[in-house]
Structure formats: C-alpha cells, structure tokens
C-alpha cells in the first residue's frame, strides 16, 4: 500500500465509517444495553475493554507477520507496516490496562493486582515500548529494522500466554464469559449486550485500520525523505 492510496479516498471512507460505528457503538454500549445483573452499570466498560485488547492482539499479529516478511524478503514496506502496527498496538494495550484498572477498582476493590493476565499484559506493553525505543536508538535503518523484527516476533509470543493465563493459573481475572467452550454466547450473555459488543468491536477494527493507514503514510513519507536525501547527497 502506498502512502497516497492509504490516505486517499478509501482512507477517508474508512475514517467516516469508523466514526459512524463509534457513534452507534456508544449508543448501544451506554444506553441500549442493559446493566449487568451483578456488576450493574460499571460492566459497560467491557464494551471498550474487549475490543481494545483484541485490536492490540491484531496489531501485534501484524507486527509478527510484517517482521517475518521483512527478515525473509528485506522489503522496506514490510518493516514500515510492522513499525506502524507496533506503535498503534502500544496505544491499544496501554488503553486496555487503563480501562481494566478503572473497571477493577469498583469490581475487585483495587486499581492493580499482580494477577497473571494483568502482569503478562503489562509485560507485552513493556516489550513493545522497548521495541519502539530500540528502533529510535539505532541510527542505521536496516539494523534498526532487523533488531525490531526480532523483538517483534519474540514479543508476539506473549499473546498466547496472556490468553491461556486464566486457564493455567488461579487468577483474579475471570475466564472468558462469551467465548466459553461449554456454552454458546447467546446462552450466557443478554443478546443486547452481545450486539453492543459486536458493534463496538467493528468500530475499533475500522478505527484501527484507519489509524494504521495514516501511520503507514507517515512511515512511507519519512522513507521517501531519506531516499531523496541520500540520492541528493550521492
């Protein structure tokens, strides 16, 4: 994807579509969905908490794929994709931890606890903050890309651990309420809650791809500046 394609007509359509879904998602999450039987209204944080972490997982999966492709083919566009996805993944992981903390206070009585899932999510955030720092510290673009790709691939391996942590350890964080192996989602969760969650998930996905297209445009333009400067110096 070139910068112009990403930021052109399709990019704008994606942006407007995301805005519509965000507005509809807010209505469904804050007004239409009923309060939870046990937690009351505070459970409404779930409608942004689950989409945030799933978007972060998707972002780090894109880092993983982009990094593997870069190490294999050494094409700049794969590195730009991985670096762009890492930056947005960090944003969504940080937001997930903040939302979880705000949800944890009225539900568990604490803002933070060293629970397995929370700790592994914090480690994921640290790995990818480290990824961005490492990249900014290495001046040589190719060396930065190779080092970043290695960290990106290793960092992604934390995600299966986060997912399985609620099964492997006795933790405070509850196991999945919706994707349970023993019950269909609609047997366990009110349909209005499922609809609100689905709409918010689509809103986050659209927003994510819009942000990614803009971030790729930044990376692509910066890359062209470097190439122009090198050509001018030669």
């Amino acid at each position, binding site marked *: 994807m070139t910068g112009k394609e990403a930021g052109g007509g399709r990019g704008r359509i994606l942006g407007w579509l995301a805005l519509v879904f965000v507005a509809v998602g807010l209505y469904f999450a804050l007004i239409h969905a009923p309060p939870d039987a046990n937690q009351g209204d505070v459970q409404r944080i779930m409608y942004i908490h689950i989409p945030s972490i799933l978007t972060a997982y998707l972002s780090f999966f894109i880092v993983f794929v982009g990094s593997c492709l870069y190490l294999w083919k050494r094409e700049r566009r794969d590195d730009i994709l991985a670096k762009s996805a890492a930056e947005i993944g960090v*944003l969504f992981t940080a937001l997930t931890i903040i939302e979880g903390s705000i949800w944890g206070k009225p539900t568990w009585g604490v803002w933070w606890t060293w629970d397995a899932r929370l700790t592994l999510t914090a480690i994921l955030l640290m790995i990818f903050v480290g990824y961005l720092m490492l990249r900014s510290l290495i001046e040589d673009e190719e060396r930065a890309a190779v080092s970043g790709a290695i960290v990106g691939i290793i960092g992604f391996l934390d995600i299966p651990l986060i997912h399985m942590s609620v099964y492997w350890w006795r933790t405070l964080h509850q196991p999945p309420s919706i994707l349970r192996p023993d019950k269909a989602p609609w047997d366990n969760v009110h349909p209005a809650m499922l609809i609100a969650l689905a709409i918010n998930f689509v809103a986050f996905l659209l927003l994510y791809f819009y942000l990614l297209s803009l971030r790729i445009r930044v990376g692509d333009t910066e890359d062209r500046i470097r190439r122009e400067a090198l050509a001018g110096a030669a």
Partner: protein
Amino acid sequence: MGKWGFVLLAYGIVWSAILAYLFHLKSRIRKAEAKLTQVKSKGSGVKHAS
C-alpha cells in the same frame, strides 16, 4: 465515585487518547509531506545547477 463515574472516566480517557493520537498522526503527515517537498525541490535545484 459512583459506577457511572468509573464508566465515564474509562470512556473519556479512551476516546480522548485515540483522538489525540489521530490528530498527532495528521500533524506528522503534514510535517513529513512538507519536508519531502522541500527535499525534492532542493534535489531538483542541485540537478539543474549541475
């Protein structure tokens, strides 16, 4: 803080952060494209001079 207070705090932080990041990206695009135009014009100036 009441339960709605926690909900509004979470939604407020999330949407403010996403909006701030969106505006930050738009500003980075504007700056990068201006710099690219500048670098290109310098490059063409060098070519004409030689």
